[in-house]
């Protein structure tokens, strides 16, 4: 396993905190991800994983703390800004329009245009098709014809289209929220292969997953959330599933995170 601690930091959070009224959903999260590194976020339901991701992707506004992307502190006022800055998210409920073809889905909301005319700007379909092809080659997804609407595609192919978005846009950081939760065995393998491809291309990735095997197979590091705090930061080659479960359930707490219960 490679050591990434010396390579460039892509994203860092300092004291990232989110309170919903009196509920402290996320408390003082200090997190780093380096270029090319694949980090898993694990934890029980309600442990703060999704809250953490929602702050990074600016779906919600944080209560306190800093988010630093490529060395620059960021203040995105919405998920679109975060995406424009290079943080791509593959949502659990696939954010795809079923009746549209693959290029339209990839470029949904940020279509390439040939001629600017406000809402009536002329689409550059050729450029979008070519970029789609390139994105799919990058992920290694095979789709019979990208110009068919995606409603007839399998769950795995659709998930791959969603992931191919990130590859097509040269994102700086990809976040996947349980990308295989709803998929069958073969389709899960497909998605995992894409994750491996992203790894080979040095693309950093944050993966939220409950699947221990997947995490140990694919990831470099595991960050465990418990009761709104980061309670463990473990390198995959220095830990084992029992250990991780102990942290998730609270049977064990990390010495380097003394504030964790």
């Amino acid at each position, binding site marked *: 396993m490679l050591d990434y601690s010396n390579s460039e930091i892509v994203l860092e959070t300092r004291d990232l905190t989110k309170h919903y009224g009196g509920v402290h959903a996320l408390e003082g999260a200090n997190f780093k991800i380096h270029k090319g590194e694949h980090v898993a976020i694990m934890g029980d339901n309600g442990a703060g994983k999704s809250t953490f991701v929602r702050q990074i992707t600016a779906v919600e506004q944080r209560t306190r703390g800093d988010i630093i992307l490529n060395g620059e502190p960021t203040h995105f006022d919405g998920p679109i800004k975060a995406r424009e800055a290079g943080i791509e998210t593959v949502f659990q409920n696939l*954010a795809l*329009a079923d009746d549209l073809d693959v290029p339209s889905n990839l470029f949904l909301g*940020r279509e390439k245009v040939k001629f600017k005319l406000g809402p009536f700007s*002329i689409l550059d379909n050729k450029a979008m098709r070519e970029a789609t092809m390139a994105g799919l080659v990058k992920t290694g997804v095979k789709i019979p*014809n990208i110009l068919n609407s995606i409603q007839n595609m399998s769950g795995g192919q659709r998930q791959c289209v969603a992931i191919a978005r990130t590859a097509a846009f040269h994102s700086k950081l990809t976040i996947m929220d349980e990308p295989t939760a709803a998929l069958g065995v*073969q389709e899960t393998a497909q998605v995992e292969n894409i994750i491996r491809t992203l790894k080979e291309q040095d693309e950093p990735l944050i993966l939220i997953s409950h699947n221990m095997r997947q995490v140990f197979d694919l990831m470099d590091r595991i960050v465990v959330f418990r009761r709104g705090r980061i309670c463990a930061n473990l390198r995959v080659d220095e830990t084992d599933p029992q250990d991780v479960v102990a942290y998730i359930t609270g049977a064990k707490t990390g010495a380097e995170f003394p504030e964790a219960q």
Partner: protein
Amino acid sequence: MSKSSHGIGGLTFDDKKKARAPEWNVFFALVLIVAIFEGLGAILMGQSLLFDTADRFDSIFNEARLKIIILQVSIIGIIALGATQVIILGGIDLSPGSIVGATAMIAMSFAQVAEINGMANPKLMFAGVSDLPVIVPIFIGILCGVVAGAINGALIAYTKIPPFIATLGMMVFARGVAKWWSKGQPISFPTDSYAALGKGMTPVFIFIALAILFHLILKYTVYGKHTYAIGSNEQASRMSGIKVERHKVLVYTIAGVLAALAAIVLSSKNLTAQAGMGIMYELDAIAMTVIGGVSLAGGRGSILGTVLGALIFGVIISGFTFLRLDAYYQEMVKGVIIVGAVVLDQYRQKRNAARM
């Protein structure tokens, strides 16, 4: 899960795997309906519906009937172009018929002549407002459509009330405006230039021009792409950064403008405007749209489909007249066809869902 054998890596983009355009189905339906009427015509009347059997013209077609078929659907067809966009967006618009009534009254009152054969125009709405250039009533008419459509869109986008309710309100309201404008009196005697807008086959040319324009807009612009996207998955569109609310206002406004254009053409063709104009037009327009393969669930359909749907509509009306059947049957059959088209659409969707 599909029984796909798609491996990882390697890419094939097979043009043979391209699905057949659904417009073909509508086209086949049109051909089938024409064939049915031709068959019935041959048996019952000893005549052909569309083809020239009496050798009256130089062409093989019965041009007079073809012209009538197209002419009688072209004005409602203009409304159907708007209905198509609204339904693809995942909405519904019940107000165009009433917008036609209100716009026809208001536009016509700015298109009147002062004198008819040396006598003062007895129907003149505003003293002194007469013989204006044709651009004035056109502009005012379009403005009516913009206002009505924008109100529809804003209500739906920002108060989140169902489109059915918002446009039902506009349907009743605009009809009220049409009656209030001249206290129920018809408004007549337009200028020659205004009357030219609906003369002869002009409505057909206007319909075709607008159909081509919106076909191109839906197919090749960001506006079109977003209309399909929102109708297909509104939540995903919002997450992808499409300004859904603003887009809805725009689509309903365009539908309002198309209703207003239909009103201008219709009042010009009739040389008069009455408060009752356009009643039930919205339902005929929706019917053309649905017959043309536009899914009421949103996200699917095309202008080309709607134009074919309008032609099916026209052939049926003409065919019934041709077979000398009562108009009552026409309406009954229209009703059956609308429901049949929606049932077919539901079936198609279920089949698609089952395949996944």
